[in-house]
């Protein structure tokens, strides 16, 4: 019965969406606000990459909300994984192979540099805080993969994630108190296309990059940590 209603629902869904294909202006959207942003975006925010202009300028508060969602997911994930766990010092210390270990050591600086580069150039070229943050997260997770006994430093981690998020909000609040609107970009906009341009947007992207990197690395580390409660249930 459940299966039947599911198929009925899916059929209806498919039907509606296929009908839509004929109605929607595919390939020629109205772009009301998109057009405005194209015309004014570069001059208003100083960012050459208009997606960055939208992400951090026009819709900056969405990005703040998104950081908060990542933070919430990491917090909740830690809550779920750590509750009811007996702290075990016994770690499965089977080291990863030589290749992984060497690769981890070699790749770590490369990944950090690449991540930072992508974060800092977010307002000029494709990329930015999210993409760079993911690369940073993988860079800091790699040593854990190579040496399972290593532990991530939770104290530093929570400091980084707390203060990068706070930095984003504080930049927003400075905009509010000094210039009149929350998250209003300030500082000189510079010349479109240069590294030091676009006012506060690169600063915001650095905060985003650190925050995303810290949250995701924390989530990965939490998922990677073995705990002894599940050993008992392994073959239950």
């Amino acid at each position, binding site marked *: 019965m459940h299966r039947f209603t599911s198929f009925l629902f899916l059929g209806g869904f498919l039907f509606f969406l296929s009908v839509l294909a004929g109605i929607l202006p595919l390939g020629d959207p109205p772009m009301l*606000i*998109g057009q405005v942003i194209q015309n*004014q975006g570069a001059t208003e925010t100083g960012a050459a990459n208009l997606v960055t202009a939208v992400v951090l*300028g026009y819709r900056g508060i969405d990005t*703040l909300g998104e950081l*908060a969602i990542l933070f*919430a997911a990491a*917090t909740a994930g830690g*809550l*779920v994984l750590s509750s009811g766990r007996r702290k075990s010092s016994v770690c499965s210390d089977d080291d990863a192979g030589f290749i992984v270990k060497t690769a981890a050591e070699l790749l770590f600086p490369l990944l950090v540099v690449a991540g930072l580069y992508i974060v800092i150039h977010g307002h000029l070229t494709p990329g930015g805080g999210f993409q760079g943050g993911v690369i940073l997260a993988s860079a800091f997770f790699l040593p854990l993969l190579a040496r399972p006994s290593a532990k991530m430093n939770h104290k530093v981690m929570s400091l980084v994630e707390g203060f990068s998020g706070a930095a984003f909000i504080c930049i927003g609040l400075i905009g509010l108190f000094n210039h009149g609107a929350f998250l209003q970009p300030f500082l000189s906009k510079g010349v479109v296309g240069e590294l030091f341009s676009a006012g506060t947007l690169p600063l915001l992207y650095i905060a985003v990059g650190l925050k995303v990197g810290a949250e995701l690395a924390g989530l990965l580390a939490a998922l990677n940590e073995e705990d002894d409660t599940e050993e008992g249930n392994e073959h239950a």
Partner: protein
Amino acid sequence: MQELIILTFAVPLLLAFLLPSLSRISFTLSKLLAPVVLVALAVMVGCIWQFHDDTFVLHIGNFTGPQGIVFYIDRLALLFAFAVPVITVLLWPWYFDPQESSELKTRKLSLTLLLVAASAGMSLSGDIFNLYVFYELLAVASYGLIAAGDHKAGGSSYAAAFRYLMISALGSVFALLGIALIYFQTGTLNLAHLSEMKQVLDSPAGLIAFVFILLGFGVKAELFPVNSWVPEAYMASSKRVAGLLAGLVSKLAVLVIIKALILIYPQDEARQLLLILGVIGVLIGEFSAMKAQDMTRMLSWSSIAQLGLVFIAFSIPGKAGMLAGLAVALHHMITKPALFLIAERWGGSLQKLTGQAASSPLMAALFVLFALSMVGVPPLPGFWAKFLLLSGLSAQEAWLAIGVVLVMTVIEANYLYRVISSLYGKDELQSISSGHHKADVFSAAILGGVLIFSTIQIQAIGKTLDDIASDAVDIKSYISNSIGGSS
């Protein structure tokens, strides 16, 4: 002064980010700091309410025009921005299971603060994608709070949270799809701008987008087809969290749906759909509540039924519907958290409740008070809410809906009476449960005081609500306020 309203969103968020570091210094400090800040925020909103009569608009980042995000602050938004910190402080996790580590407690506090930030954002925002982002934040924070469970839940809290997460994530996909369809047709996201172009959306494709948005935001609003998570989640979580979700969070999801309905979809079809879903919700909720064997489940189903009433009320066009909907929603926002607080200790089987009034007379009396108001016994606010609802429906000549509401009221009275009679019943084989925690009694008593106060001041409150409602349905001034007539 008025632009400080953004702090109701920014400050809880800031505090939530910093709480893990702060609690390393002192956990007690971080536990007490947040309620103090919330109270201060509530006072600030109160001042803005008092001293600024006009509706005003905040352009985030000072990007005027529909390309930026707009916070639209009218009386309705201020009302919710005030209610969010107040209800949260009352339902704040004041006490914990002593076995929990302080890291775990801090995480719960952080999640609660994130919930507050998201709720404040949702009550203020006037941009549909921004609303979606806040809604997601609300959702993720509530997954965490449900998964944290209460001390007896065990694996069931994870199971309930996961099932809730799946339904909610499915809803989010639908909501995103709905926003994509709207953007396809109009090329804008600003609610006022969309409202200006609503004739574009008066098409099959536009209505499909509305259905998707309804399914998406309906998950938290406990709307009929997507509410199967409700009893499980409230059973598994601590009752404070359940009260927060049923009382506050659901109202904010309703607010989004109402904004979409009033501003973008004035068609009869949309209202009819809402009416039908609301009636089904009331029917299922009340009948299941009647069958429920334990108090938590009964309250959960009755919450679904009450939200069904809210949807029925909002499906009445014009100011009458807005007024009735607001009244029912606000009434539910006060009663349901209190009832869940009472259920913190009495949440188990109904039979075990026999004679419990003797052990905790104040809580039993409060239960009677809230139950009477929920059924709609005349001097209490619940009566006026239902009265407004019924008179609005009769003006629409929706006799079927009126019949459903009346019959369901009888059923509601029946199951609530069952609880009351067993509370005050005499039974020798009673097993006195441990008494209520002081914080629970205190919060419930305050909510009871609010209810009695509003019974006395019903005329003033009625007038205020009337003003809010006529503001809220004034689409023309909404458009001219937020984008200044130009586009």
